[in-house]
Structures are given as structure tokens and as C-alpha cells.
């Protein structure tokens, strides 16, 4: 397969999953798209090498995760220097008509819980890959998933009760 065709297929096939992976790490859909495009730009410059890896998408995911971690560290450093408090994720970049309540409930979770939910349920990563991405034990991921589900169910029930 021609190199450009192969890369275009990888791009079209995995872009959305990787954006959602980055979303799980950052809680910001705009930043997630930015990181994913950066990861693909890196991969494009090394596409001959990437094509020889066992899983180009896993290669890209590692880049996305490293970029997200670097972004987080840089941001926390600047926040500390500027004595800024951690900002809330920006208001919904993507208005989702049918699932607005659930989306808001997920955004309201703590970062650790939001990450496992987004990575597992929205980015479709198996639990062991979520654990690898977050650098956490599998048992911790399962426990966070369980608590996050309970919290989501509770928040959604509360909102229904308030209607």
C-alpha cells in the first residue's frame, strides 16, 4: 500500500478515538483535538517508522498521552508560578442535544474519575489499556470505574428528580 494512502487510512480510522483519549486526559475537547493533531504531525514526519510498528494507533496513543501529560505538567507549573487556581474545563465545546445531562455529569466528576469513564466508555479502551494510559494499576481503574458509574447514576437521578 502506498505510504500516503496507508497514513490517510490511519488518520481517518483513528482520529476520533484518539481525540476522545486526549479528552479523557485533558477534560477539554478543543485541547484534545489540538493534541491529536500534534500527534499526527509527529507521526507524519516519521510515517515510515510508524508503519513498521505492531500497532500504529497504539504508537499514536502513546504520543497523545505523553503530550497530554507534558501539557498538564507545564500548565500546573505555570499555575503555580502565577498563583492561579485550576480552571474548570471550558463550557461545553460540543453541544450534545440528546446526552447533555450525561456529558455534564461526566464533566462534573473529579479528574481521575472523568478520565477512566472517558477512556473506557467513550474512547473504547479496554481496562488494561486505560490502566497503561493513566499509569495506574488495573484494580485501581476498575475501582474508579465502579465509583464513577455510581456517581453518574446518582447525579442523573438527582437531575431527573429535580425536573
Amino acid at each position, binding site marked *: 500500500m502506498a505510504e500516503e494512502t496507508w497514513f490517510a487510512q490511519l488518520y481517518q480510522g483513528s482520529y476520533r478515538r484518539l481525540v476522545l483519549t486526549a479528552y479523557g486526559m485533558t477534560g477539554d475537547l478543543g485541547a484534545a483535538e489540538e493534541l491529536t*493533531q500534534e500527534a499526527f504531525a509527529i507521526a507524519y514526519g516519521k510515517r515510515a*517508522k510508524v508503519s513498521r510498528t505492531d500497532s500504529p494507533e497504539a504508537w499514536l496513543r502513546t504520543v497523545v498521552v505523553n503530550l497530554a501529560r507534558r501539557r498538564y505538567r507545564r500548565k500546573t507549573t505555570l499555575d503555580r508560578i502565577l498563583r492561579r487556581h485550576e480552571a474548570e474545563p471550558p463550557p461545553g465545546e460540543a453541544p450534545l442535544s440528546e446526552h447533555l445531562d450525561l456529558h455534564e455529569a461526566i464533566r462534573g466528576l473529579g479528574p481521575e474519575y472523568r478520565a477512566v469513564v472517558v477512556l473506557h*466508555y467513550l474512547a473504547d479502551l479496554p481496562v488494561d489499556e486505560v490502566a497503561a494510559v493513566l499509569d495506574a494499576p488495573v484494580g485501581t481503574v476498575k475501582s474508579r470505574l465502579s465509583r464513577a458509574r455510581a456517581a453518574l447514576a446518582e447525579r442523573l437521578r438527582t437531575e431527573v428528580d429535580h425536573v
Partner: protein
Amino acid sequence: MSDLDTMLTGLRDELRSTITPPDLAHVAGRARQRTVRRRMQVGAVAAVVAVSVAVPVLRSLPEAAQPPAQPPVPSTMTFQLDFADADHAYALGSDCEEPEGTCTLELFATADGGRNWEKRTLPDGDEKYALGDLTVLDADRLVIYRVSAGDEEWRRIASDDSGRTWRDVGMGEMGAPAPLSEDAWIQQVCVGEAEDGGCRLGVGTMSPDGEKVVPAPAQPPLVEPLAGSSATEGGRFWAAGIDRATGRWAISVSSDLGSTWTTTPVDVPGEPAMTDAWAVVENDGVLYTTLQGSIAKGPFGLLAVFRSTDGGRTWTNTWRATPDTVLQAMLGIPVATDDGRLLVYSAATGTYESSDGGRTFAKARQQLPGEVMWTRGGYVAKRANHGYAISTDGVDWRTFEIG
């Protein structure tokens, strides 16, 4: 499947449907512009840090022995290259392991316009770094920012003797505003506190010893001005950004070393997609501005050309893209040649030229050697591998290779 699972699946599908990958040409263009953009990011962070961090005590690093000239250069190494003048240039090489993103950094120097290069020894040169950034202050002075790969610790080192010896310097204490020198390296600097408590970015330079950030005497009235890194051929400094007063994109030009700025709004088609999307070049008193980006997530390329014959007081939009006529994957800056042409380089379609003041473009008779940047030594084009070419008139190019 529970109700929650059904809702999660629905949300996943809906989120995916809202995410639209930009055109692949956008990624290709971005891949080639990563180095410049990373430099801008580093500069911005450094500018922010500059207002809040005290300068630590300086310490001299031991003088290092110099290796022999013309050293071997790894084939996988990429360079951040800058000229201080026609003869003196420095190249910070990064040899990175992916996907980890950890890099080995090496510095090379030339004093004869790139014909011969010598490798310099950096302190802690065997360590791995997440990022390296080079600022060439003048022929002998340079500053390197490095970010350790492991703990992401920032370190800034400076040299006054062409990279032979080094000392640690702080993140750049804020100095008093001062006129820019004609050959100044321009960067974003923090000139005060923004309304959101962050940094209000402006235009400035670094003091000759690399230890202070020096704002220009006056600031262009732009939100986060994106400044050209050195003066144009006619000695003008420029910046582009959103005009604070009008909320429109505007170009600011200073013809008096940053003491006053002439700011003119311009009408922009589509979205200027990257921090280094704007470029201003000059030849014989005629200024050209090009803008790169994409229209509605379409192909990445040249969006517009503006021309000024009165030092930036008025701009004429000579060429404008539509979704069908984007000159795709334009890279680097344009070249305003001594014989009156305007050249733009595209990795996708080759070099195009305009002989009517930027109104129409046709395939160029003579192709540019590669993506071009403007330096204090003239136009520098990136060729294949470690090859470059340099030109002062945009017509005649001399090739050279690092290493």
C-alpha cells in the same frame, strides 16, 4: 445493557459525530512547521515565567574542551537554525526517540556563513530532553532553553563566546523598556497582567547578556501579538494579531525600533490556523504580508496576500483564497526578490511566483530550494536532510550543509 450503558454508548456516538478530522494536508503542513511552533510556545512560556521568577544566582560552568571540526551528525537529527549575521549562525540539533519524545541535543556553530561547522559541547549534553530551544542574540551570544525529559525541569544556559563556555541564567528578569536594536532577536514578552490574571503578551527582546527580557518602548495594540523574529530587509519590525480596539485581525509595523507602531486592520478569509501563520517580508520599500491557514477545516494553504508601499500604513489585499483556490500546503515565509517578484513555496505543488505585486500567481520558472525562513543573514531555505541554502536577494542561492 443498563440505562447508563445505553446513554454512554449514545454519548460516545454523538461525540464522535461532532469530531471532524481536518484535511490531511493540514497535518502535513503542521508536521513541517512543528519546530517553529514549538519555539513560539517555549518563548511564550518563558515570557510568562519572566514576570514571576526571580533570577537565581548565576554560576559559571566549567570550560569544555572543543572537539575537532566538521563532526559527524546523526541522520535522524533535525535542526533549529538561526543566523546572527551573514557569517555567524548556530544550529541546535535534536535527535529524538519516538513515541517517547525524548531528545538528545547538540549545538553546532559556523563563522563563515555555513561553509564549515564546529560542534560545541553543551553542559550535561548526554542527558535526554523533552524540548530544546535556541535564541541567537548576536554573533557571539546565545541562549538555550532545555526541558529535562524526566522531571520536566526548565533550565536556561547562556554563552558569550560562541558556545564555548556556558553559565546558568534565570528565566529572564523583566528589564525596563528600551529601543530595539536593528539586529535584535524579537520574541513575545510579558508586559503586564491580563484581565484574567495571566500574562499580557507584548513584543520585546532579550538583553545582550541573556539575563533580562526587554520590552519594546511601545507595544502594538494587539492581543497576543505574533511578532517577526527579526527586522525586515528595510529595518522594520512587525507583529500580527487581534486589534484590542476593533477585535479585527491587524498588522502592526514599527519603522523606528519599536518606539511607535502603525496598526492597520486587514480582512482575513478563513482561519489563521497556526501561531506562525503570518509573515511580513520587504524588498526595496515594498512590504508583503502572507497569511496561512484553512477555510472551514478545508485544505491548509495560503489564505491571503497583502501589499503595502507606505511602510504599513495601508495594506491592499492583492490575493485572496476561496475554498477552491487555496494554494495548498504553503510553507514557511514568502520571498520578495530583488527583481520585484514574490515567491511562495509549497511542498505539495512547488514554488509559485507573482510578477504583478502579489495579485496573480503562476508556477515559478525557478523553484525555491525548500521551505524558507527570514533571518538576520538573509533568506534561508531548508533542503533535504541536513542541507540548507541562503540568499540575500531571493534570486541567487548558495547551498550548505550542517556537519
